């Protein structure tokens, strides 16, 4: 009995945790019938496992919607890649060898190229001809870039609101969105200049621009110190419309 107890004791915990191999279960259950101490321990451990199973944390959801989290992670990745550590790693891993190679190539090439440059014929000036098509193409490109930049800035503002801004200094549960509200007002002023250009060349941009405008108006109307419910309402609308995801797609579309 003592040997059996010592042999099976550890398995009592695994049985309680639902992690015992099925072939071992009959022996452990039979032991529990004979050993009151192990039976009592098993009952207590079962209660513990049930308590863990009923822990509300198991059903907890992240406070931020996925698109906001993705955005935040991407920002952190950018920061991590731009950090001095990454820079150092690049410098020692790739940068120095690349720089050494470049220096070597220049050292080899310069003596051959320089005389040719000196002796070669002077270039004849060519009259620059720019057609109407080129101008239109340039305008379209500029319009797309301008819209993409606008949407990128709007996305930053909306992420700023959704990703828990700092608490206001005056205390309580109010959030400091003064900067986001100010930037929203600026963006709304710039919006009018985009109207004619964006929808024509990227149809999906028009719809997203309208959605963004609606949300920017809400952010612009926020008090500098806003309550949690007001931010939650904006976060919910962002999430419902999957706007951050759409913004990213349109930005890419516009960037070609």
């Amino acid at each position, binding site marked *: 009995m003592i040997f059996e107890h010592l042999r099976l004791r*550890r398995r009592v*915990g*695994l049985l*309680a*945790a639902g*992690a015992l191999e099925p072939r071992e279960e009959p022996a452990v259950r039979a032991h529990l019938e004979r050993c009151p101490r192990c039976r009592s*321990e098993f009952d*207590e*451990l079962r*209660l*513990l*496992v049930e*308590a*863990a*199973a*009923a*822990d*509300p*944390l*198991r*059903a*907890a*959801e*992240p*406070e*931020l919607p*996925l*698109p906001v*989290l*993705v955005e*935040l*992670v*991407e920002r*952190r*990745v950018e920061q*991590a890649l731009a950090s001095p550590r990454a820079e150092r790693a690049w410098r020692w891993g790739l940068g120095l060898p690349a720089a050494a190679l470049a220096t070597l190539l220049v050292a080899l090439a310069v003596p051959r190229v320089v005389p040719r440059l000196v002796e070669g014929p002077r270039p004849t000036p060519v009259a620059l001809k720019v057609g109407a098509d080129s101008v239109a193409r340039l305008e379209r490109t500029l319009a797309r870039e301008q819209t993409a930049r606008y949407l990128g800035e709007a996305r930053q503002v909306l992420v700023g609101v959704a990703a828990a801004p700092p608490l206001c200094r005056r205390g309580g*549960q109010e959030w400091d969105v003064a900067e986001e509200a100010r930037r929203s007002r600026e963006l709304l002023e710039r919006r009018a200049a985009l109207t004619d250009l964006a929808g024509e060349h990227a149809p999906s941009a028009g719809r997203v621009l309208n959605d963004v405008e609606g949300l920017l108006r809400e952010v612009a109307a926020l008090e500098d110190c806003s309550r*949690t419910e007001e931010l939650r309402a904006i976060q919910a609308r962002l999430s419902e419309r999957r706007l951050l*995801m759409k913004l990213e797609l349109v930005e890419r579309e516009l960037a070609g």
Partner: protein
Amino acid sequence: METAIEAVAAVDLDRALLGRLAAGDRSALPGLMERHYRRLYRVLLGYLRQPDDALDAVQETFVKVVEHAARWNPQAEPASWLTRIAVNHAIDRLRRRKRWAPREQPLFEGDHASSLGSDDPSPDRRVYAREVSERLGRALQGLPERQRAVFVLRHYDELSLEEIASALQMSLGTVKSSLHRALVQLRRRLGSLRP
């Protein structure tokens, strides 16, 4: 319930996403996050016990996934690899928290209470579950790191012992003894749980 075919397809999709990330294609990140962020958040919350901390940790976990994707061995199980990164990060984080700022905030106050779901309609049961959860959180703090990780992966992520062994790079025997020891220690620290 996920079928075997769905499980294989899910692993293949994870492999494809991680493979793209390893090749420097960051557009694979949202897809990978969508598939794993909830699960990792719950693991991290089970370990760290503070929603803000867990939310920050889940972001840091994915930053590390991007940074180290090139080191991922395509033969390795993607979910286990992600879990390992999350658990190691949680362990580091808890060490730092203990070293620099030994603070524990009450878990169920303020805005986070609303995010903690419960299917139990009875208010008494909910209150009891929350009390036990707080006691469990305090008891977990006293466990050695690996025992704590094994307990959390088993009871908050419902991983099999083999999956835990793979995620934590431990032998199956070590996982079994760690789980048993964690349970016994927790029971001692918690005292009786009879309502």
